[in-house]
């Protein structure tokens, strides 16, 4: 019997062995010292047929409750959106799906052009000239951005807001540890959540390589003092790095327009499923200045021509930044990235267009506003806790109800509603607060259902 994925049957393999003059397959493994040869079979389940595997994996996964079968208000780094059917169907085309990194540009023009289009659309979206063809996710893109700031400025401090996503901060710390770059947190205004400008200016010195803000912030509010932050950063000769949810840029001013030198972000909401948090898509963009471009981590796809000088074509460029050429002097070790997620993002953005993305961003914001209004009307609840404009995420505080977020969430779950993410471990100073998110998946009725469920849960307590 043959094997479904191994075309050479045992009989053919025997013939091949004879042809190469080997008496048995074992002769091909005599170079492995007997002392370290595995003398037993691996302890794994016996092989299953496709049908059996399908049933087995389906049965395990059936123990999950997808957010499509309940009402969920989770965001906080990945955001549920509808993935148009054609986006999924196009990225599943096996010429894209089963290709390697486009090292042979002549045979990989399709992937290269798609990635160039991705870079181009991200550049438009964030208002800069250059975007790379992807990093692993927002957190690692931030880590790489900090390293790039350090390389460009040869300085050792990197300022971040205290309300940064804790996962991203921890990742940043790990990335910064190599060159001894020191992340420093800047406080915030307790009423508005906005960055404390006085403290920022105090920390500003000739040691600062970069200043990072998240806009929209991890807790959903917008940073309104971007011009002042950019000015203070540039005055000190540091680079200004902004982290974004790209959907928000359908509506919001692009960071390039308010002085960002580098933009990072999470591209998952652009046509990629949430998938338990990965694969994700790290956005990385910067100004077009060569001084910066030469320090960019990861792959860059450029437009060029065939040797005839006329036919347009695409290839990987500035590869001397990369590990396969530069080894220990590379700008980063990244090799495999998130190319297919980037292609999904390109298809998604091309499908929505400027109008579609604007309307989507507006609908998400509007849904959040409506949710805040409804929840605020419930006695004891406060949404948001910061007095600032918000995009599609916001904070909900329940300290005045004497019921914990955990309790409320447990009650909601009984009603097939997944509440927001509790923030107590991440930001104890915010008390009983949760982070909620709305997108186009939420109808007005859905939001009303959340409100009445909360009312019911709290009403029983009074």
């Amino acid at each position, binding site marked *: 019997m043959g094997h479904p994925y*191994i075309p050479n049957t045992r009989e053919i*393999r025997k013939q*091949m062995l004879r042809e190469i003059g080997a008496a048995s*397959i074992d002769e091909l493994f005599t*170079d*492995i010292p007997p002392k370290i040869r*595995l003398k037993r079979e691996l302890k794994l389940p016996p*092989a299953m047929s496709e049908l059996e*595997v399908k049933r087995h*994996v389906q049965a395990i*996964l*059936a123990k*999950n409750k997808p957010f499509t079968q309940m009402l969920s208000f989770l965001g906080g*780094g990945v955001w549920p959106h509808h993935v148009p059917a*054609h986006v999924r169907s*196009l990225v*599943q*085309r*096996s010429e894209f*799906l*089963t290709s*390697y990194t*486009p090292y*042979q540009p002549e045979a*990989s023009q*399709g992937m290269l*052009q*798609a990635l160039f*289009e991705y870079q181009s659309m991200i*550049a*438009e979206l964030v208002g800069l*000239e250059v975007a790379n063809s992807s990093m*692993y996710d*927002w*957190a690692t893109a931030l880590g790489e951005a900090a390293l790039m700031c350090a390389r460009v400025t040869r300085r050792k401090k990197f300022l971040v807001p205290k309300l940064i*996503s804790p996962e991203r901060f921890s990742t940043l710390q790990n990335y910064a*540890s190599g060159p001894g770059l020191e992340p420093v947190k800047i406080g915030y205004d307790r009423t508005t959540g906005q960055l404390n400008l006085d403290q920022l200016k105090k920390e500003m010195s000739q040691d600062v390589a970069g200043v990072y803000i998240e806009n929209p912030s991890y807790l959903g509010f917008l940073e309104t003092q971007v011009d002042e932050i950019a000015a203070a950063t540039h005055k000190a000769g540091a680079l200004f790095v902004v982290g974004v949810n790209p959907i928000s840029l359908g*509506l919001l001013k692009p960071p390039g327009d308010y002085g960002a030198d580098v933009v990072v972000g999470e591209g998952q909401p652009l046509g990629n499923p*949430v*998938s338990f*948090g*990965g*694969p994700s898509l790290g956005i990385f963009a910067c100004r077009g200045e060569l001084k910066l*471009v030469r320090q960019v981590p990861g792959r860059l796809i450029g437009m060029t021509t065939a*040797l005839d000088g006329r036919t347009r074509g695409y290839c990987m*460029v*500035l590869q001397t930044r990369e*590990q396969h050429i530069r080894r220990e002097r590379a700008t980063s*070790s990244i*090799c*495999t*990235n998130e190319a297919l997620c980037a292609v999904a993002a390109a298809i998604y953005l*091309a499908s929505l*267009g400027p*109008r*579609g993305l604007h309307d989507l961003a507006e609908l998400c*914001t*509007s849904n959040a506003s409506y949710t805040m209004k409804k929840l605020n009307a419930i006695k004891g609840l406060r949404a948001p806790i910061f007095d600032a*404009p918000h995009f599609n995420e916001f904070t909900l505080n329940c300290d005045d109800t004497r019921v914990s977020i955990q309790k409320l969430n447990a009650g909601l779950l009984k009603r097939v509603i997944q509440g927001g993410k509790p923030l107590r471990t991440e930001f104890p100073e915010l008390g009983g607060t949760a982070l909620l998110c709305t997108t186009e998946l939420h*109808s007005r009725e859905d939001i009303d259902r959340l409100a009445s469920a909360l009312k019911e849960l709290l009403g029983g307590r009074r």
Partner: protein
Amino acid sequence: MSYQQARWIEPLIFELSKQGRVGWALPGKPRERINIPKELLREKLELPELSEPEVVRHYTRLSQMNYGIDSGFYPLGSCTMKYNPKVCEELAALETASCIHPNQAEETVQGALELMFRLERFLAEIAGVARVSLQPSAGAHGEFIAMLLTHAYHKSKRDDKRDQVIVPDSAHGTNPASAAMAGYEVVTVPSNARGRVDLKALKAAVSERTAALMLTNPNTLGLFEDQIIDIAKVVHDAGGLLFYDGANLNGILGKTRPGDMGFDIVHFNLHKTFATPHGGGGPGAGPIGVQRELEKFLPVPVVEYDRKRKRYYLDYNRPHSIGKVRAFYGNFGVLVKAYAYILLMGAEGLNEVTEAAVLNANYIMHKLLGVEGYELKFDASGPCKHEVVFSTEPLKRETGVTARDVAKRLLDHGIHAPTYYFPPIVPEALMIEPTETESREELDRFVVALNTMAQEARSNPEKLRSAPMATAIGKLDEVKASREPILSWRAHRKLAKK
């Protein structure tokens, strides 16, 4: 030779844009007034405007100008371009996998946690390690995290003088780059005449400054480091750790295990060995396995099982952990595919994978040794493992035709080019990895093609130099592309205006 890739003159999507077109409809209209001050709003956004059929046609055409493993033979050395079973895609796309949020209540994601828990144990068994973190997003990410773990390990021993990482000259570029990113000085050790780590040079290189040795085994020449027991002893005696680069794991499945060889940290490329697709460069997944003494440093969270509550959970309570290395828990979608693949194969199947892959490589080695113009630079006396590195130096001496010319000409035969000019220690290198999913007929066709090219190099070398002809486009001006980089439509238009 009968191959011709699609050759569309396909404009950039921006050039296909017509004002007012849209490829997607919103489910509703905003009903609340947006409370965002005008100065925070954007004025214009120049994205393309197209309907859905136009978008679909554009990207379908682009896909037709792309070569994947489903298109044909892809003997790209060290990349393990094997067939990717379709059922794995189907499973990862299930709503119960793709539509779950990482912050959902634990009881609503028991399936995801169970799958990760089980996959971790499969991988630990395959590599012979104690624990595995599924978090690294790709191979190089795994390497970088391995270096962070190395640092944490030595620091816990209050041993802060270890600032060097040793890397053989045949290593993948990601190894030295990852070590440098983690702050280490890279020390390169040469290979010996047998294409293995020079043990004498290694002994001279280790010291109280050695944090780790990064090693691929089988190495990038496709040769098994048969002195691995001594290598491990040298490094361990000096107080260093051994890191295993798992790029070539396909050469040893079920035959030996990195843990049994003495490695302390092991990384896997699920997108190579475990048949998850490369997606044109990613996403992949690069889990890392560690031995007991390094377990406590693994990134948070790790998946655990609570026997009392009969519940899987994410454990963040790990005071020695290096912390986070990315958001959430890894490329879950890729993990689902690798899990399904391991079940499809079973222990016996994985063993057969390696046998068939190694046989295919040895078959190519045997056949190509009979073709004038190609030669092996290192030890041809023993078998190779999953890949073989030939040098086209004799052909170049005779005809001036380079390894790159040969590789490009292969594209005209409908065969993807092998990795060329790598490893750097082989002049005019062609690094060939056939994998187990190729038939003997396909291998024969490949050998015939290389034979034809050797003859062509003598009779009509121009044909090789001007290759490829049968691809979507001919050779590109890559020098110009890097000298005056145009990296976006925005930059292109700006340049055109000048």
